[in-house]
């Protein structure tokens, strides 16, 4: 519905612009009698019953007030009304409804109907029609739009049509159409994953494309369909690197991310030696024993590497060099993509360049800051030095959102070292005074981390934190307690006074975590505060029942430890606490109490464990390591969603490890631009196969083709365009010439002509194939062509000219009727420079002149083809025919039947179309069939010789159906001949163009009643 509804406007414009190709954008996206796929996603009643919330929230909103009384029936009425303004209003309301997620599906028929009658020239389109358009329209934008619409129809039935259309478009002349083809690939893939192999072929072809327009889209398709086929990239790697800077920004992001992965599989680690040293150092620092075995291996490998001095692959260098300027992009996503590429691929010494650009991004929107800071946080762990010069850029402002503050804090903490710690701590001091308490808590954590990492400032930090213990805000105090606890664990001996201070706090602090921390500290270091500890336990025993669970557990813990160290003073207290805990509601606490009692209170049953109770409880505990949450995040590709979430997102492609030894670099060598060769060869092959279908006589087709192409390139080159192949219309010609990139021009110039001819013949072949589905069906249509006289040999003073309507699509412009003109020179002298001059045309009509015939020797016959756009009218085209000496005024007047071209459709389609063209658009006449007019085949032959239509297969013997469309506007022409008893018959013509319908009926009547 959504797509549907925005289209009226679109469709109207396309009518204006495209002269009859409007269905390219027209709204009805349904296949035959099917509901659109997206309908099923919304259960019919859902919106009304399940989601009244939205309406209730805003009962006063004016829009709702408007909408409520108007039930769908009213909207239907409005849509059915005659007034455009009412319809428009109804449409707008429906769009608004959809925007708010309401179900409007029951309005679908009304809207469809409306669309059909609103634009008189629009006939409801079918997928196959889109395909035709996407292949044949002279304007590349319309071809592309048709393909876009076609590929958006999410119905499996049309998969083959889509596949064909994509394949055609992938070898289109226009890069824009090829781009659209690339866009269509993921759509088809999501519709039918079985098409993968075929789609990969198309991707492979498009990857070889040399235009910037296509590159981004095709890599996108590659990433969605076959990201594992890294081998497809080899040949295109250098080209992609070189094109990169001119690709549009969104494409750049996709390409850079893909190339990062590619480079990881193909090149050697530029930091192999350094990273080994670094890792070795780190490992000893973290003291993990298991990895030593591995380390040996790695070291052995490193020795091998070390022996061979590292030389960067020139392709690796190319990538780094070509991406660097993109750090200056205005698009944050591009900058981030380059930054991650450098981080993952560049030698350590060069990574630094990205810092400045990333810091620049921090001035952007807060969401951008958020993502960038996450990535910077990861980078600062690995490469701290890179961001050190920009330390101050991470200073926090009171107006920053909390999440940004916390991330900046993280970065500042990561950047802290002996030299800058004093500055950072001073900065932290101001943060602690902030009004944002979450931020203050994070700052305290940060101070704790600085203190653990940098030994020199540990005491300073600790003192600062102790001062915070007298802060008025409980959260601040609690956080400080937790951090102090961690710090004290490192060197408890020195700080018994701090522990004493904290013991006093138990009276005031209510935050459970903080109370638990204090109790744990006192228990752990009860030997340092022998006098205070029992007293704390006494107080706690008193309040035990009112404490939180986490605090109760620590009270038990404290009791146990005191019992073990100082049982004389605390025995009774401990027993009391254990008894209380025994009847606690929480089973964890009951469990713990039972466990502790068994362990510490000696009974006769007590096992061997109680001997070790002291060792168990008072074992030396390792100091906690305060680590950045961003540590080890760099195994995710930076800048990715997975990195941000620190969890693998669906469809995430792992960043491969560097290979031990580089794969063969020669795979990236490209010698000759292969693709042009082979594709043209393919075309040539097809052409040969098709020939019998479209040419009556082999000998004729050759010159016709070349004549066509000459005439076209003539007009094309006039406007300086190099893609005149597709449009002889001056308008689209100039459009295209501007659309061409400079690089293409050079490249194409030479091959243009040859390629183009093949292309044209290919198109013709295809067109004919589409029009006549099988030779059998087509054969009756090829009756003898009626020849008309253009210039009698007497008036022409020996030059006789006849013309006939060849009924072949005019290759330069499908809106033109092709007229085959035959010159016969009956004189004794040769006629020279035969050409068209000064056409006098009705407005809108156009002529594509035939190329001048230089010489016509005496007695010779020459045939040329010209195209005339009659604008779907039977008005004559007047022009002068010149020889080197004479001028003759001539006129070509088309019979109405020649103003159309056949299209192929099925019976169902025919009926559906016919249903849309009722009323004024339907003309029915009764007649008596003529003498010789017996049997289907005669009727068919007569109708077809009268009008350029194709037969529609039909189940009934009494009926013959024919379909076509007018050449200029593409309006459908549907003819039905029903034979009845005796020789009675009835002819029905359905056509949007009433005039054409009326005239056509007359002609057919005449033909049949002869």
């Amino acid at each position, binding site marked *: 519905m*959504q797509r549907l509804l*925005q289209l*009226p406007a*679109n469709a109207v*414009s396309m009518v204006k612009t495209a002269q009859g190709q409007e269905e390219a954008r027209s709204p009805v996206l349904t296949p035959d009698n099917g509901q659109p796929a997206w309908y099923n996603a919304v259960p019919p009643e859902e919106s009304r019953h399940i989601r009244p919330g*939205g309406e209730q*929230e805003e009962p006063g909103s004016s*829009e709702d007030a408007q909408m409520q009384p108007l039930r769908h029936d009213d909207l239907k009425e409005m849509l059915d009304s005659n007034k455009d303004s009412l319809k*428009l209003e109804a449409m707008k309301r429906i*769009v*608004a409804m959809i*925007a*708010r*997620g309401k179900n409007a599906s029951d309005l679908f028929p009304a809207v469809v109907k409306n669309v059909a009658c609103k634009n008189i020239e629009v006939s409801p389109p079918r997928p196959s029609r889109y395909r035709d358009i996407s292949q044949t329209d002279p304007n*590349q*934008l*319309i071809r592309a739009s048709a393909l*876009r619409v076609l*590929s958006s129809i999410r119905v499996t039935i049309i998969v083959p049509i889509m596949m064909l259309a994509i394949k055609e478009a992938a070898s289109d002349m*226009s890069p*824009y159409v090829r781009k659209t083809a690339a866009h269509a690939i*993921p759509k088809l893939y999501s519709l039918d994953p079985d098409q993968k192999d075929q789609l990969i072929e198309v991707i492979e072809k498009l990857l070889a494309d040399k235009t910037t*327009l296509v590159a981004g889209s095709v890599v996108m398709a590659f990433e969605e369909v076959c990201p594992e086929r890294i081998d497809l990239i080899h040949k295109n790697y250098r080209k992609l690197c070189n094109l990169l800077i001119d690709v*549009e*920004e969104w494409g750049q992001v996709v390409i850079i991310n893909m190339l990062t992965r590619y480079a990881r599989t193909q090149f050697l680690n530029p930091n192999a030696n350094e990273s080994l040293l670094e890792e070795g150092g780190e490992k000893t620092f973290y003291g993990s024993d298991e990895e030593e075995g591995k380390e040996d291996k790695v070291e052995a490998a490193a020795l091998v590497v070390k022996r061979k001095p590292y030389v960067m692959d020139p392709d690796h260098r190319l990538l780094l060099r070509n991406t660097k*300027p993109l750090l200056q992009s*205005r*698009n944050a*996503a591009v900058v*981030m*993509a380059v930054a991650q590429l450098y981080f993952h691929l560049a030698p350590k010494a060069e990574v630094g360049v990205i810092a400045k*650009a990333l810091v*620049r991004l921090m001035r952007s*929107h*807060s*969401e*951008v800051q*958020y*993502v960038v800071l996450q990535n910077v946080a990861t980078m600062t762990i690995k490469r701290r030095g890179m961001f050190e010069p920009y330390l101050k*850029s991470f*200073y926090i*402002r*009171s*107006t920053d959102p909390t*999440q940004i503050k916390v991330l900046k804090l993280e970065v500042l903490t990561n950047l802290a070292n002996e030299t800058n710690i004093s500055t950072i701590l001073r*900065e932290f001091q*101001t943060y602690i005074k902030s*009004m944002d308490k979450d931020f203050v808590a994070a700052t305290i954590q940060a101070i704790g981390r600085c203190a653990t990492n940098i030994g020199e400032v540990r005491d300073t930090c600790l003192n600062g934190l102790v001062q915070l213990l007298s802060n008025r805000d409980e959260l601040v105090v609690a956080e400080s307690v937790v951090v102090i606890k961690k710090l004290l664990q490192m060197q408890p001996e020195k700080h018994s006074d701090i522990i004493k201070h904290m013991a006093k706090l138990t009276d005031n602090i209510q935050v459970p975590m903080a109370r638990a921390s204090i109790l744990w500290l006192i228990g752990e270091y009860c030997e340092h505060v022998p006098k205070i500890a029992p007293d704390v336990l006494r107080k706690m025993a008193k309040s035990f029942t009112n404490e939180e669970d986490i605090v109760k557990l620590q009270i038990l813990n404290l009791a146990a430890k005191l019992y073990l160290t100082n049982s004389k003073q605390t025995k009774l207290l401990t027993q009391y606490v254990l008894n209380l805990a025994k009847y606690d509601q929480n089973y964890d606490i009951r469990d713990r109490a039972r466990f502790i009692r068994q362990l510490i209170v000696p009974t006769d049953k007590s096992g061997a464990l109680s001997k070790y109770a002291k060792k168990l409880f008072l074992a030396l505990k390792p100091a906690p390591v305060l680590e950045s949450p961003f540590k080890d995040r760099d195994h995710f590709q930076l*800048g*990715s*969603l*997975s990195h941000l*979430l620190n969890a693998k*997102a669906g*469809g995430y*492609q792992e960043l491969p490890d560097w290979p031990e030894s580089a794969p063969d670099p020669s795979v990236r060598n490209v010698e000759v631009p292969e693709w042009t060769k082979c594709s043209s060869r393919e075309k040539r092959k097809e052409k040969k196969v098709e020939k019998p279908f479209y040419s009556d006589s082999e000998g004729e087709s050759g010159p016709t083709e070349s004549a066509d192409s000459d005439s076209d390139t003539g007009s094309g080159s006039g406007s300086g365009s190099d893609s005149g192949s597709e449009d002889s219309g001056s308008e689209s010609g100039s*459009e295209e010439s*501007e*659309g*061409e990139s400079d690089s293409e021009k050079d490249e194409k110039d030479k091959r243009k002509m040859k390629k183009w001819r093949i292309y044209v013949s290919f198109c013709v072949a295809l067109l004919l194939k589409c029009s006549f589905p099988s030779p059998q069906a087509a054969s009756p249509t090829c009756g003898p062509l009626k020849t008309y006289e253009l210039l009698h040999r007497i008036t022409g003073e020996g030059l006789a000219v006849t013309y006939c309507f060849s009924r072949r699509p005019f290759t330069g412009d499908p809106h033109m009727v092709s007229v085959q003109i035959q010159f016969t020179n009956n004189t004794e002298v040769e006629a020279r420079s035969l050409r068209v001059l000064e056409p006098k045309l009705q407005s809108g009509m156009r002529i594509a002149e035939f190329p001048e015939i230089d010489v016509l020797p005496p007695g010779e016959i020459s045939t040329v083809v010209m195209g005339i756009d009659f604008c779907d009218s039977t008005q004559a085209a007047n022009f002068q025919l010149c020889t080197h000496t004479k001028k003759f005024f001539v006129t070509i007047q088309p019979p109405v039947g020649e103003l159309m071209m056949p299209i192929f459709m099925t019976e169902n389609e025919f009926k559906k179309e016919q249903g849309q063209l009722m009323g004024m658009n339907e003309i029915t006449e009764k007649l008596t069939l003529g003498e010789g007019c017996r049997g289907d085949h005669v009727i068919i032959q007569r109708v077809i010789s009268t009008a350029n239509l194709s037969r529609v297969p039909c189940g009934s013997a009494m009926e013959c159906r024919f379909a076509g469309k007018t050449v200029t506007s593409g309006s459908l022409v549907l003819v039905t001949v029903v034979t009845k008893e005796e020789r009675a018959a009835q002819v029905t013509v359905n056509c949007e163009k009433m005039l054409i319908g009326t005239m056509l009926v007359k002609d057919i009547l005449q033909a049949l009643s002869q």
Partner: protein
Amino acid sequence: MIHSLFLVSTAGHIFLEKHWKSVISRSVCDYLFEAQGKASAPENVPPVIATPHHYLISVYRDRIFFVAVIQTEVPPLFVIEFLHRVAETFQDYFGECSEASIKDNVVIVYELLEEMLDNGFPLATEANILKEMIKPPTILRSVVNTITGGSSNVGGTLPTGQLSNIPWRRTGVKYTNNEAYFDVVEEIDAILDKSGTVVFAEIQGVIDACVKLSGMPDLTLSFVNPRLLDDVSFHPCVRFKRWEAERVLSFIPPDGNFRLMSYHVNAQNLVAIPVYVKQNVSFFETGSSGRLDITVGPKQTMGKTIEDVVITVHMPKVVLNANLTTNQGTSTYDPVTKVLVWDIGKLNQQKVPNLKGSLSLQSGAPRPDENPTLNIDLRIQQLAISGLKVNRLNMFGEKYKPFKGVKYVTKAGKFQVRT
């Protein structure tokens, strides 16, 4: 990539949804509401939220959440940048990006979204191309549409710009008056501490252009002192190689308004802080009251006047009201949002603006131990505080003589004084 888009007002009302692939129930937005409930302010809602089946990437702009729903891995910045581009397009089309304006133009919004994304991948995001295809609403056109019943905002010409390799410029541009204006706008980002010493200061600038030139002009803009520019980012139209080699901006401009470049001024150059601020904000232990005294004066102004000076203070929650007097401008205190705004206007050399008075605190509440930060806003016309100067603007490729104008403005960016 981008599966669906929801536009949500701060009140939690989903007023527009658009799906590019299949329909995703709007109940996914519940996760956003949940996050919004946890966050103290809309700005604090995390931009990326993981839900069991989807990921929500949102940006908050002009009191609207733009929420993109995605299903698979995609660079988050890609989506964020795109959403901002959408918001900018709306702004460009409707003059403002608000719930009301979007609701009023639902049809155009849909048309725009349809063109901007194809199957979730950005297609046409350049304003110039979009405007060629979909005309922005104007009063005249809406009147005409109402009368004639015509519904089309869709342009009559095909978007040929999409085909070229300068997609930012539309073809066939014609003006009777050919003009090119460049605004050099610099912002001072600074943090001053209690005593007025600079903790951190930097200058960043942008060059915004409004180019209305016929045909395909090729412009070259050069600076007197390009060395000042430390870090730059360009509109895609700027030829990077020429910048690298000659330090000039060479480009074929888009038609209309656009941001040509943004830059950062070399950090080694000391930043001239144009104003000084003396402040004293204190809260008394007894009597539930406090005192405030702020004085602002011009400092290094290079002979220009400082205009539009506004000082904003976010007070602690316990401040109930403020009783303040000033010798220049007006001051207002909003007891609900706890924001004090002092609108001063021009700074004179002779008279130094001062604001002082008492603050009344919630009785019984403890004295706030934090001091509020002052945020300063100001503007200096005809001055780029870094000293950057445009040397000349040359045009090639067209014959006419355009009118060229350059304007300099300095503003305060994130300018804070800690107390």
